[in-house]
């Protein structure tokens, strides 16, 4: 009935081209992986399926208020799951928001968290081949993440070596919630392989740890509690990796913490430095203060952005974290998506703006 005689005004994409460091490609259905699994693991998928660290292994730890954790407008016209349709992803996000590059962070299958590590390794291989064939080969703006199995380091190393020659892959993806804290020695061979191939480690929030997200007490009541617990999980990654001496062992290791945002980083470094000054003889393998390791080895993606009451305050925090360590991300197509046009409530000046929206990610991931 309503016929527009004039084209609706189209929002201007940000003039800045952006690198989006966190978008989630999705399977249309589990059967999409079949061509990438051997018959032995197809049989396992069909007969048993996956099992991660909770009873209902194909579900999320807490029920969300939106299906598929997605923006309600992210369902493609075909009705396929959000993030599974490249043409719609181009239209709704890559083109509309001026994305120059974006880094795929596949989460489906939970390959790295599977209890059956052989099956996990098969899923990781399949997901990586699926990424290459269905996404990287079809869209030149996309870059991939090598899914690996931290609880099965030998397979993780083989997978890194197998995929590293495809320059479309720009990082090794590990879950931050592992059987043991991330800095423990059992994971060092994986870090060593990443360093050998000059690939950063990417750790995306979430995953099913099998432990209550309350870090020590019993299970939490609400999704909002679990959602917040993603931050202390990221803090635990930093604390463990720094204090275990990972960065003394691997001085060129770079770690991108994805979807944890960053406003919590400065007080963590203050507290760790203070404690280190008093307790350093317990960890004599640390040659520098924790804050120095953190400043040098960690990168942080911005989403979900922190929103202080005075928007300008955020820029002070960003300066404390380090302007060269912050990388813009949207989390498309998930519900807590950040839009590049509106993510900052105060004006972000150059050169910080370009650094944050593209420069830092290009430097870390070797884009261009």
């Amino acid at each position, binding site marked *: 009935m309503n*016929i527009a005689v004039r084209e*609706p005004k189209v929002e201007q994409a940000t003039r800045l081209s952006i690198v989006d460091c966190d978008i989630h490609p999705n399977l249309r259905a589990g059967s999409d992986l079949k061509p990438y699994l051997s018959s032995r693991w197809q049989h396992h998928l069909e007969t048993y399926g996956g099992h991660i660290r909770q009873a209902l292994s194909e579900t999320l730890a807490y029920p969300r208020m939106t299906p598929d954790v997605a923006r309600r407008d992210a369902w493609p016209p075909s009705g396929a799951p959000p993030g599974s349709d490249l043409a719609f992803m181009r239209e709704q996000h890559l083109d509309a928001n001026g994305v120059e590059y974006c880094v795929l962070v596949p989460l489906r299958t939970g390959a790295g968290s599977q209890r059956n590590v052989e099956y996990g390794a098969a899923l990781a291989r399949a997901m990586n081949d699926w990424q290459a064939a269905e996404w990287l080969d079809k869209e030149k703006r996309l870059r991939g993440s090598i899914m690996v199995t931290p609880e099965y380091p030998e397979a993780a190393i083989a997978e890194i070596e197998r995929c590293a020659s495809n320059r479309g892959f720009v990082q090794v993806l590990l879950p931050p919630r592992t059987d043991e804290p991330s800095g423990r020695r059992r994971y060092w061979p994986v870090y060593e392989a990443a360093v050998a191939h000059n690939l950063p480690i990417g750790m995306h929030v979430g995953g099913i740890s099998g432990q209550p997200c309350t870090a020590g007490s019993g299970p939490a009541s609400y999704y909002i509690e679990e959602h917040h617990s993603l931050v202390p999980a990221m803090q635990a990654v930093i604390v463990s990796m720094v204090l275990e001496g990972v960065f003394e062992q691997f001085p060129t290791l770079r770690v991108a913490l994805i979807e944890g945002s960053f406003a919590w980083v400065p007080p963590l470094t203050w507290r760790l430095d203070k404690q280190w000054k008093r307790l350093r003889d317990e960890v004599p393998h640390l040659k520098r203060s924790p804050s120095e390791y953190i400043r040098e080895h960690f990168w942080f993606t911005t989403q979900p952005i922190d929103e202080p009451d005075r928007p300008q305050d955020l820029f002070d925090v960003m300066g404390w974290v380090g302007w060269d360590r912050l990388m813009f991300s949207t989390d498309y197509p998930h519900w807590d*998506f950040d839009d590049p046009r509106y993510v900052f409530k105060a004006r972000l000046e150059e050169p910080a703006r370009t650094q944050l929206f593209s420069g830092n990610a290009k430097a870390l991931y070797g884009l261009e």
Partner: protein
Amino acid sequence: MSRHVVANVGEIAPGSSKLVTVKGREIGVFNIKGEFFALANKCPHEGAALCRGKLVGLALSDEPGQYRLTRQGELLKCPWHGWEFDVRTGQSYCDPDNTYVRQYAVSVEPGSELLKGPYVVETFQVAVEENYIVVEM
């Protein structure tokens, strides 16, 4: 300010809505229990197409353990971050002081008194005896 015909009254059933374009701007017209309201299709938080969100109620609690769902279908929940806006006022319930959706006046007028709006020419002719929904903008 000018007035624009955007829909036939019967076209938007109670509990439903229609997305229209007036002066190049997208506006969602909602029927809440027989009353019509119009909201800009842009969330003031991060710019999402607000009218693709869900109509929900307002969950209230005076103290832990006591809950009630009120005003069912009168709040619009943003499709992205879940901000809730009162469709009657455009006011946000999470942060009522700082986040408003632009609201437009809506009235229902007899068809014979209408000026034809620039965007509804075709439909005006087929429903001249009916009542039309008019958006002022």
